Structures are given as structure tokens and as C-alpha cells.
């Protein structure tokens, strides 16, 4: 199977796939334990506004999407902390507004015939060397945040009320978790697209949750599981000529079903 990675674009896809899998494993864990899955979906879709914004102004796509994602995450964090009961309504609103802005801005861009599909379903095969440097830098930023902020992240995620009593700035860390996640979400979208990003952020985490007894191990395990799914998906999509992002997601779902089946059989045998 290694001969398929002889071409440049497949090598780039492999490296990007591994880096993004590690990123999505880490931030996916943060998103799941903080019950921010819907928020993450909102951020992913809002960033489509940033894609339109970047195309309209001729900026790099990643920059535009990141700006929108960060603004959306700060806004959502503020609303989530202030109006806990109504936050789902606001997320839905921001979600739709972001996408609508994106569509209109692309309409307004003269002569631009955008390939919408690549943003919705990912374009890992179009990753360039420059993108890989960006992805790697983001991975480093996320790792630094986790290593130095671990005990506060853990305290805020597990029991935010108690963290507040212990003198931790809960609002600040909640916002930081969301902002860091939003950057991770945007970069993960490069691989599987904004429609499928939620699956990539949650399926490996779901499996990792069952086999790890601490947050840090959950992050490591999800990163590795995600890497396995991504590489398998990449290989399968190459041989069958499928859309890579969608293949990665289906491989992940198959992996999850397999895991649950094995777990069930194991528990029966153990009895």
C-alpha cells in the first residue's frame, strides 16, 4: 500500500491527515467533555462567512475563516456564560447568519465560480506544503495551551462552579477553550469539510472516552484513533476513487460500530 504515497499530493495528504487527526483528537476531547458539540457545529458553519469574506477581499481562505471562527467563538462564549438557558437559540442564529454572509459575499465577487463542494466536504488532496506548516504551527499552539493550562482546563471542564470558588477565572478559560477549538475546527475542515467536521471531532473521542481514565489520555487516544481512521480513509478513497473526507467519516463510523460490537462481545464473554 505504500506505493500510493509516492506522489507529492498523496504525501502531503498523508502528513496533513496525521497532523489534523492529532489536532482533532485533542480539541474534540475538549469539545465533548465540555458539551460544546453544538457550539462547535455553529463555529464551523459560521466560518463559511469567513470563506466568503476572504474570497471577496482576495485574502487567504484560512485567514478569513479563522477570523470569523474566532469572532464567533468569543461571541458564543459570552452568550453561553451570560444566557445559559437560551444559548442554543443564539448558536442557531449565528450559525445561519455566518453561512448566509458567506453565500452573499461569494455572489458579490465578480467572475468567481467557487467550488463550494471542497469547503463543504473537504479537500485533503489539494493540501500544499504551506498548509502543512500552518497546520503544524497550530498543533504546537494547541499543545502549549494544553500543557501549561491543563489543571485549569480540567477544573473548568469538570466542575466550573467549583473552579470559580477556587479562584480560577472560569470565563477566561471557557473562552480560551472555545477560541483554541475554533482554530482547530477551521483547520480540520480542510480535511473533511464543514459538514463532516463534527463527526471527525466526536467519533474518535467517543471511543477514547471508553478506554481512558483521564482527560490527557483521552486526548492522546483520540488523536491516535483519529490518525488510524484518516489514513485508512485516505487509502480506501484512493483505490475506489471516492471523496476522501466522506470516506474518512464512513471509515470512522465503521470503526465505532466495530468497537462497540467487540466491547459487547467482550462483556458477554467476561460474564
Amino acid at each position, binding site marked *: 500500500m505504500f506505493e500510493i504515497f509516492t506522489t507529492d499530493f498523496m504525501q502531503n495528504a498523508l502528513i496533513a491527515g496525521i497532523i489534523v487527526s492529532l489536532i482533532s483528537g485533542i480539541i474534540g476531547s475538549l469539545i465533548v467533555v465540555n458539551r460544546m458539540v453544538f457550539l462547535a457545529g455553529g463555529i464551523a458553519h459560521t466560518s463559511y462567512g469567513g470563506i466568503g469574506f476572504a474570497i471577496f477581499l482576495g485574502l487567504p481562505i484560512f485567514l478569513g475563516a479563522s477570523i470569523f471562527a474566532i469572532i464567533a467563538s468569543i461571541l458564543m462564549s459570552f452568550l453561553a456564560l451570560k444566557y445559559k438557558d437560551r444559548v442554543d437559540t443564539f448558536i442557531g442564529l449565528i450559525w445561519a447568519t455566518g453561512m448566509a454572509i458567506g453565500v452573499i459575499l461569494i455572489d458579490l465577487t465578480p467572475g468567481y465560480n467557487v467550488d463550494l463542494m471542497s469547503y463543504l466536504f473537504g479537500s485533503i488532496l489539494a493540501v500544499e506544503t504551506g498548509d502543512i506548516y500552518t497546520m503544524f504551527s497550530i498543533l504546537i499552539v494547541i499543545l502549549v495551551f494544553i500543557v501549561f493550562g491543563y489543571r485549569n482546563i480540567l477544573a473548568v471542564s469538570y466542575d466550573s462552579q467549583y473552579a470559580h470558588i477556587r479562584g480560577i477565572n472560569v470565563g477566561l478559560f471557557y473562552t480560551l477553550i472555545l477560541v483554541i477549538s475554533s482554530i482547530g475546527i477551521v483547520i480540520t475542515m480542510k480535511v473533511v469539510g464543514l459538514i463532516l467536521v463534527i463527526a471527525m471531532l466526536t467519533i474518535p473521542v467517543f471511543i477514547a472516552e471508553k478506554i481512558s481514565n*483521564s*482527560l490527557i489520555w483521552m486526548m492522546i487516544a483520540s488523536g491516535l484513533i483519529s490518525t488510524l481512521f484518516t489514513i485508512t480513509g485516505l487509502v480506501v478513497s484512493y483505490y475506489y476513487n471516492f471523496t476522501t473526507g466522506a470516506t474518512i467519516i464512513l471509515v470512522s463510523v465503521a470503526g465505532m460500530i466495530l468497537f462497540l460490537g467487540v466491547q459487547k462481545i467482550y462483556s458477554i464473554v467476561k460474564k
Partner: protein
Amino acid sequence: MSKKILEIDNLTFDYDGTNVLENINLSLDEKDFLAIIGPNGGGKSTLLNLILGILETKNGKITINNQDPSKQLSNIGYVPQNTNINTSFPIKVIEVVLMGHISDKKPLFGYSDAEKACALGALTQVGMEQFANAKIGSLSGGQRQRVMIARALCNHPTLLLLDEPTASIDVDGQRKIYELLKDLNKLMTIIVVSHDISVTLNYANKVAYINKFLTLHNNISRFSTTPQNGHFCEVELMQMFRNKNV
């Protein structure tokens, strides 16, 4: 004269103009064991949140060891009401206890050896040290409650607050928790918000009935020595307190 731990002076608190607490006065000495009882919505949790500094006092004054509660964080231990939340969270018992440390003198990353030793010590104090590396979700309700008490003990508090500590625990587990609190009471002042009046009365030396106003009973021995059928009916007891107030 024994040392004053908690002083509440003329405290009145309102949510949007409706008074929840009115003219609360309370004073606790070293090694007091106060039970707070009262109907739901009577202001018990509000008072607890004010003592903890989660809510800010507007009228009146609360002092802990003669200081504002926000300056006494490391002297307050707190065990929240619902400890069954987030049981699927991937976290070890020892990590939960480590959260009890105040965050102002923490190392650059991770936890210091002193903090770890302290957390293990707290777990030993509640008899849970052999579960240090277990996942929190794998424990029973009573065991988890002991872990939460260990977390509150991490900073060696002088005042320990517990909100309904035995609400979802079986009878045997409840008794163990109260025996533990009795031991801890030799070292610190304890406030328990509870519905288990019959149990609480055997351990508390003061009882406060809160329903907007606070009625304090300093000498409860005359109640606890004359229970009928070995137990107090909660309704009867509440009526007793209420009558005194009226």
C-alpha cells in the same frame, strides 16, 4: 473565649427586588456544627452562595475569620449539592481532589509534589486512598461524596460547608458520612444544609431554620433527647421552629 469563625450581620438579599433573605444574623465559633434546615426556596442555597462568595452581598456583612469571604478562599472547604453530575468525565479520583487546591501559587505546569501528597492525605482522611487512580464514574454515590469531601479538605479549611451531603446516598452511606463529619468537626467548623433532620440533630450543636428569616437554636439537646419512635418527623420539627418565630 473561643474564636469567631463566621459572622453574619444584618444580611438582606434580594433577587430583582424580592427579598429572599431578610435581617440574617448568625455567628459561629470554632468547632461549631451548624445544621441549616428549611423549606425549598427558603433561601438556604442563597445563604450558602453568599458565604462562599459566589453571590455578592449587597446589604449587610459577612466575615470569615474577620475578613471578606473572597480573601478567605483557602480557609473555606465546600462540598456541592449534586455530585452525580459529569460521571462519564474521564478523570481520576486523585485529579478531582487536586482541584481543591487554590490556584494562586501553582507550578508552571502539572501539580507540585506537595500538592499531590496533600491530596493523598485528604483521601486517606476520608478512607478513600485505595481509589486514588480509579475513574470517578466507577465509584458509588457515597464513595463519590467522600471524594468531594476530600477535595474540600485539600486546603485544610477552618470552615467546611456541605450542601445536602447525603441527598442521594443509602442509609448506611449516610451514617458513614456523618461519622466522618463528626471526626472532622474536631478540627474545623462545619455547616450542613440538610433535609435529614433526624440524623443531623445527633451531630449538630446548632440548628438554623431558614425561611427568608433565620431562627437559631443554640441548645438542641432538648430536642434530640426526646424524639418519639427514635425519629423526628420533619414536618413536626419545622412547625416547632416556625411557631417560635411567629
